[in-house]
C-alpha cells in the first residue's frame, strides 16, 4: 500500500478514536438480550432462551460457589491440610442423575417449539424466496407480485479505504431497495431456495433462519404479531458481498396489505429495484413495450442504473472488476466482441464462475445494461441493443 493510503488509515484511526472518546455514551447500544420477539415462534424462542439461562445461572452459582469457596478456604497459604479422599460413588451418581433430570425438563418445551416451527400447514399466503449473489427475490405465488431486494446503503457510506465515509444512515446495511411486504397476523409460508450458493434467510425477531440451498426448496413460516418493520441479514457466508445482503420485512395491516398488492399488480411486471427509480422518470408501461425503439442515450441512462444495482458489486463502478474472480468489463473481449455472445452470457451465466444468469431482469433492463457496458469507460462500440433483440435471444 502507498504512503497516501497509510496516511489515510492513520487519519481514520485517529478520527475513530476521537469519535469514540466524544460519543461512546451518547448513542451507545449496549444490548445484552435477544431482540424483542415479533412473532409467536420468536416469543417461544425468547422464553426458552431465558429458561435455559436461568438453569445455567443456577448451575453457575453452585459450581462457581463451590470452586471459589474451595479456592479461598482450601489454600496452603491459609494453612489447609490436604485430605486424601478420591472417590465417592453416591456423590458421583447424584451429579450424573441431577443434570439428566434438568435436561429432560428443558427438552420438553423445546420439543413443542420444534414441532410448531416445522408445521408449515395451512398458510394464509406462500412466498418463494430465491437468494442469489447478493440479493433476495420474492415471488408472491398467489398474487403474482415479484420483488427483488438489494442493499440500499450507498457505497460511499461503506468504503472508507481512501477517505472518511459519508455519514451513515440510521439503518446502515440493514436497508433494502424493496422490502418483503406481508400482512400482519397472517401465517406466511416461505419456500426458500437459491440460484447459486448457500444463503441464509435470517430475521431474528420473526424467529426464522433458513438456508436457501441451490437445487432444493425448503419451507418455513412466520406470523408477524403486529404491523412493523423487521430487519435481518444473510446468515450463511455466500461470497464477497455476504455482509451486504440484508433482509427487511414490512408487516402491514391486512387491508393496507391488500391495497399494496393491488398497487403492485397495477405496476406489474415489476422486476427489479432498479426499475422503481427508472419507472418514476419514464412511463412504466412504455418502458416495457417490447417493440419500442430506444435511443442510445436512453439505453445508456437506464443501463447505468441497472449496472449500479446488479453489476457494480463485482465488476466495480469503474468497470475494472476485481480480477481474477471478477474480470474487468472495461476493455473486455466479450463486451467489445459480437453482441449476441454477450446477450447469451447475460441470459445463461457462466458455469463454474461467480457470473450468474441475469435472465430475471427484464428485456429492457438487459438491453440497457448491455448497451451501457458496450459504450462506457473505454468501450466504444456505438451499438444500441434493443429489448426486442434480448427477447429474441431468450430460450
Amino acid at each position: 500500500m502507498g504512503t497516501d493510503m497509510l496516511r489515510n488509515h492513520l487519519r481514520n484511526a485517529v478520527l475513530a478514536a476521537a469519535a469514540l472518546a466524544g460519543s461512546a455514551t451518547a448513542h451507545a447500544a449496549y444490548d445484552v438480550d435477544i431482540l424483542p420477539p415479533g412473532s409467536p415462534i420468536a416469543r417461544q424462542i425468547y422464553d426458552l432462551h431465558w429458561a435455559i439461562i436461568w438453569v445455567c445461572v443456577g448451575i453457575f452459582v453452585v459450581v462457581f460457589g463451590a470452586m471459589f469457596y474451595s479456592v479461598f478456604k482450601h489454600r496452603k497459604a491459609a494453612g489447609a491440610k490436604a485430605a486424601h479422599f478420591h472417590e465417592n460413588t453416591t456423590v458421583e451418581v447424584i451429579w450424573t442423575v441431577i443434570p439428566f433430570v434438568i435436561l429432560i425438563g428443558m427438552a420438553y418445551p423445546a420439543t413443542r417449539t420444534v414441532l410448531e416451527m416445522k408445521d408449515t400447514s395451512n398458510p394464509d399466503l406462500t412466498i418463494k424466496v430465491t437468494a442469489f449473489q447478493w440479493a433476495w427475490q420474492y415471488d408472491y405465488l398467489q398474487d403474482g407480485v415479484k420483488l427483488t431486494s438489494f442493499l440500499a446503503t450507498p457505497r460511499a457510506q461503506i468504503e472508507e479505504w481512501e477517505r472518511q465515509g459519508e455519514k451513515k444512515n440510521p439503518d446502515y446495511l440493514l436497508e433494502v431497495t424493496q422490502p418483503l411486504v406481508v400482512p400482519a397476523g397472517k401465517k406466511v409460508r416461505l419456500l426458500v431456495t437459491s440460484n447459486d450458493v448457500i444463503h441464509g434467510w435470517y430475521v431474528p425477531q420473526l424467529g426464522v433462519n433458513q438456508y436457501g440451498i441451490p437445487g432444493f426448496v425448503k419451507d418455513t413460516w412466520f406470523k408477524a404479531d403486529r404491523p412493523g418493520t423487521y430487519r435481518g441479514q444473510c446468515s450463511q457466508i455466500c461470497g464477497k458481498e455476504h455482509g451486504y445482503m440484508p433482509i427487511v420485512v414490512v408487516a402491514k395491516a391486512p387491508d393496507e396489505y391488500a391495497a399494496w398488492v393491488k398497487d403492485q399488480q397495477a405496476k406489474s411486471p415489476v422486476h427489479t429495484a432498479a426499475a422503481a427509480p427508472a419507472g418514476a422518470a419514464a412511463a412504466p408501461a412504455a418502458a416495457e413495450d417490447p417493440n419500442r425503439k430506444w435511443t442510445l442515450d436512453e439505453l445508456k441512462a437506464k443501463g447505468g442504473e441497472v449496472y449500479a444495482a446488479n453489476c457494480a458489486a463485482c465488476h466495480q463502478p469503474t468497470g475494472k472488476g476485481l480480477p481474477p474472480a471478477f474480470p474487468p468489463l472495461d476493455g473486455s473481449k466479450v463486451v467489445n466482441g459480437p453482441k449476441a455472445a454477450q446477450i447469451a452470457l447475460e441470459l445463461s451465466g457462466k458455469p463454474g464462475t461467480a457470473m450468474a444468469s441475469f435472465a430475471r431482469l427484464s428485456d429492457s433492463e438487459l438491453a440497457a445494461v448491455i448497451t451501457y457496458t458496450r459504450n462506457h469507460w473505454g468501450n466504444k462500440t456505438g451499438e444500441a441493443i434493443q429489448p426486442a433483440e434480448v427477447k429474441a435471444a431468450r430460450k
Partner: protein
Amino acid sequence: MSAAAPAHDHGHGHHDDHAHAHPTGLKRWLFTTNHKDIGTLYLWFSLAMFFMGGTMALLIRAELFKPGLQFLNPEFFNSLTTVHGLVMVFGAIMPAWVGFANWLIPMQIGAADMAFPRMNNWSFYLVVPAAILLVASFFVPGGAAASGWTLYPPLIIQQGIAVDMTILAVHILGASSIMGSINIITTILNLRAPGMTLMKMPLFVWTWLITAYLLIAVMPVLAGAVTMLLTDRHFGTSFFNAAGGGDPTMFMHIFWFFGHPEVYIMILPAFGVVSAIIPAFARKPLFGYASMVYATASIAILSFIVWGHHMFTVGMPAAGNLFFMYATMLIAVPTGVKIFNWIATMWKGSMTFETPMLFSIGFLCLFTIGGFSGLVLAITPVDITLHNTYYVVAHFHYVLVSGALFSIFAGVYFWLPKWTGNMYNEKLGKLHFWLSVIGFNLAFFPQHFLGLAGMPRRIPDYALQFAEWNMWSSIGAFIFGFSQLLFLYNVIECIRSNRKSEQMPWEGADSLEWTHLPTPAPYHTFETAPVIK
C-alpha cells in the same frame, strides 16, 4: 524446550551417557526419531502457527473495530476468517497436542520411545508442507479460500487454485494425523511398563488414547469430503451439485460428521492436562479417576451422533432436529461429571496457585461458561435464532481458546522445568495469565451480546447498533493477542536462563516423568522399563 539436548551435550545428563552419539545441528532435527525432539518440533511449529493465525485474527478485529470498510476488502476478509480457522485448528491446537503426546506419553507409561520412531519423524515433516500450502494460498491469483473453514460448496467451487492447495493441505494433514494416531495407540497399548495397567495410566494418556481413535475414525471422512470437492471442481462429478443429482447438504453432513469429533480431538487432551495439574497443586489425588475415564469415552462416543446440531437451519425434518437436540443435550452429562470431579479434587486440598494452576482454574471457569453457551445452543429453537451469529463465535472461542489453548499454556508452564531443566519466571507467567484472562473475556464475552442482537458471523462490516460491543471486542482481542508475545518471551527466557529447576518443582506431581526421572529429562529415558507396583 530444546534445552533437553544441550543438557545432554554438555554432560549435565545423569544416566544417559551412552556411547552412541546422535547427530547435532540441523541434521539432528531433520532426521530425529527421538520422541522428545519430535515433541519439541511439534510445539515450536504450533507456536509459529499460533502467531500466524493470531495475526490474521487481529487483522479481522482491526477491520471490525468500527462500521465501514477501513483496511480490508471483503474478499480478503473472508480469506482471513477461513484461513484463521484452518490454521488455528490444524496448525496450532492439534500439533500442540501431538507435541505434548510425544513428550509425555512414553515418559508417563514408562516406555523408551514411541512405537514407530521413523513414522513419527515423517508425521511431523508432513505438517510443514501442509502449513506452507495453506499460507502460500494467500499469494496465488484469487487469494486464499474464502468460504469459511467449513469449505461449503457450491461457494468453494467458485474459487481459484487456492482451494486446491487447501484441499491438498487437508489431505496431507489428515495423513499425518492418522500416522500419529496409529503411533500413539500402538505405543499406549504395547509399550507400557510392567504393572502399568490401563486403569493406572495418567489421565492424559487415557484422553490421548481416545483422541487417537477419534482421529482415525474421522480424518478419512474429511479426506473423502474434500476429495469429492476436488472432483466436483475438476473432473465433472456432481456430488454436491443438484443439477447433476448431487446435494450441497450432503457435504455439510459429511463435513460435520468429521467436524464434531474434531472439536473433541482438540479438547480431550486438555482434560488430560488439567487432570494432571489440578491434583498436583491441590496436593490431593484426582477425584473420580474411573468416572473421568468413562466420561471421556462417553463424550467421544456421543461426538459421533451430534453433528446435525451444526445444521438446524438447513431444513432437516422435525425428527432429525429433535434427535440431534436430545443427543447434544446428553453431552452435558459426562462433561458436567468432569467439571464436578475437578472441583471435588480441589475440595479440601492444600492449594497453591502457580501459573499452571492459574491457567487450569481459568480453564475450569471459562470452559464451564463455554459449556453453558453450548447448552443454550443445544436447544434447537434457540440455536436457530443464534445460528451463524457471533453467539456461536463466542461459544467456540470459549471452548477452544479458554478451553484448549489455556490448558496448553497450563501444560507448557507445568512441564517446562521437566523439558528444559530450568524454571520459568513465575511473575511473568502470572502476568501472562492475567493479561490473557482479561483480554480474552473482553474480546469474546461481548460477542455473546452481538449474537443475541442478531449480528451474523463472517461479515466485514456491520450495522450501527453493533458498533459498541465490537469496539470493546477488538480492544480485548488486541490485549489478548499482544500478551501472547509475553508467552513467547517467557518460554525463550526460561530456556536461556540459568534458573535450574529443582528435581521436583511441584510438590504434588505423581506421574512417572516426575517420580522416576531426573529433571531435565535426559535424551533417552526408560531404556529399562520401570516396574509399577
